[in-house]
């Protein structure tokens, strides 16, 4: 079956092939792991940015400045090829990191820089009276942050974080340059040998679209449960996800 000189049957045959599934699975693992660490880094550096002490604040600022200001692909190549060349033992665990580990590392650190700004904005969106009320009840800063401020910041943070997740899903294709066989690299290897560029890019794109669509649906679901809007029955109060993160409370 040909249309526009495209072999549509070939696409159909390979769309659900094992090799493609492996690529999709790798893309998902990369994205999910990097996003998780990105959120953790983002929260930590956002708290540093908001700290009173200027050296701490400066570290937070420098992190964002550097990792948001240089291209992600440069950072990926840097961690995998450049740094080990000048400093072979840089990784705290026996020298060389695997392409996957380096990929997650590079994506997470880059993502963390964007998440830092998102978390900072979220934390600052919470009324200052909330911290004062928490302190007046005898809570220390970390406790007030965890129990009172962050759960409220979370709802502001969800929509931009969903955006970040979708961007990261696509940006994860950049780690193909350090030979992590994720979805795009699978497609690339296949079109290089078969010369069916169009077909393989369609296959990869359909999967990226499927993943981002699922991502958007999940985001919409989370938003409807915890997102902006009034707190009331059915919303907030600490659902499973929030409780799992140690936020919120039952009563």
């Amino acid at each position, binding site marked *: 079956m040909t249309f526009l000189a495209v072999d549509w049957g070939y696409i159909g045959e390979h769309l659900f092939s094992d090799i493609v599934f492996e690529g999709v699975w790798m893309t998902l693992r990369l994205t999910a792991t990097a996003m998780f660490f990105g959120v953790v880094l983002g929260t930590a550096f956002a708290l540093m940015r908001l700290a009173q002490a200027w050296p701490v604040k400066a570290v937070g600022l420098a992190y964002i400045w550097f990792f948001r200001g240089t291209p992600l692909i440069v950072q990926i190549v840097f961690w995998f090829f450049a740094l080990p060349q000048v400093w072979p033992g840089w990784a705290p665990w026996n020298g060389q990191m695997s392409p996957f580990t380096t990929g997650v590392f590079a994506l997470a650190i880059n993502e963390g820089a964007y998440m830092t700004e998102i978390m900072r904005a979220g934390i600052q969106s919470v009324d200052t009276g909330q911290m004062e009320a928490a302190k007046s009840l005898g809570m220390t800063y970390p406790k007030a942050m965890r*129990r009172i401020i962050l759960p409220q910041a979370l709802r502001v943070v969800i929509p931009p974080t969903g955006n970040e997740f979708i961007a990261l899903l696509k940006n994860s294709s950049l780690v193909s340059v350090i030979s992590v066989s994720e979805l795009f690299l699978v497609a690339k290897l296949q079109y290089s040998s078969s010369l069916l560029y169009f077909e393989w890019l369609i296959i990869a794109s359909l999967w990226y679209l499927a993943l981002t669509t699922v991502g958007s649906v999940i985001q919409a679901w989370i938003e409807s449960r915890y997102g902006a809007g009034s*707190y009331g*029955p059915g919303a907030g*109060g600490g659902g499973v996800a929030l409780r799992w993160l140690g936020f*919120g*409370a039952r009563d």
Partner: protein
Amino acid sequence: MTNSQLPTRNSQLEMRDSPLLDVIDVYKRFGKLEVLRGITMPVAQGEVVAILGPSGSGKSTLLRCINHLEKIDGGRILFEGKLVGYREVNGKLKEEREGSIARMRAQMGMVFQRFNLFPHLTALGNVMEAPVQVLGKSREEARATAIAMLNRVGLASKLHVYPAQLSGGQQQRVAIARALAMNPKLMLFDEATSALDPELVGEVLAVMRDLAAEGMTMLAVTHEMGFAREAAHRVVFMDEGVIQEEAAPAEFFGAPKTERARNFLRRVTQT
């Protein structure tokens, strides 16, 4: 920081036996603006003090200094004879570690003008939060106390309701219950009724009067002259960062001594 010598405690002790709270010659600046200029105010156990004064007189700042939400620039604040927010090192005051400040604050309740309830928690959740998180009580115990406190402020039917669904007066009563659940030795009210619609002021004042009648030590910055007149043991009138006048309510409202107080009373009773 510029600290005057600790005044000889004898003079204080003679006045009343060791006050629960002792504010001694406290100064506070915001930049160049001097908000408190030498406030001295002992508060005895069980005493109800109404702090009156025009806006900008420093009354709210004083309250916030007492539980160290604001640092002070001079003087001392003692709670049960212990420095609030500072420790003395070679005659100089250094800010205390966060943990000890938090422990001190846990013994004082504070009620804010804008309620500051936690919007992500129900009324019950708001009241349970600190006893569980700060005092380490079990959820069962905290829940029992919380229900009792909400009952006390007349909100037993609103346990599972979120703050956004409560009226201003109800929110403020939850805030009072939240503070009371910590079993505080002192309650600070920072214009607790100023943000309320007029018809909701009464329900909050009623709770405050009950507390006063039960012997709670209270410091209330307020614009409610009725409350000051009837529930307070003592009225402190502040203006321009200084205590201008201090008297029993009958005396203050009947025969104010200073011109400022007379002007103030004329203005607030005009409406």
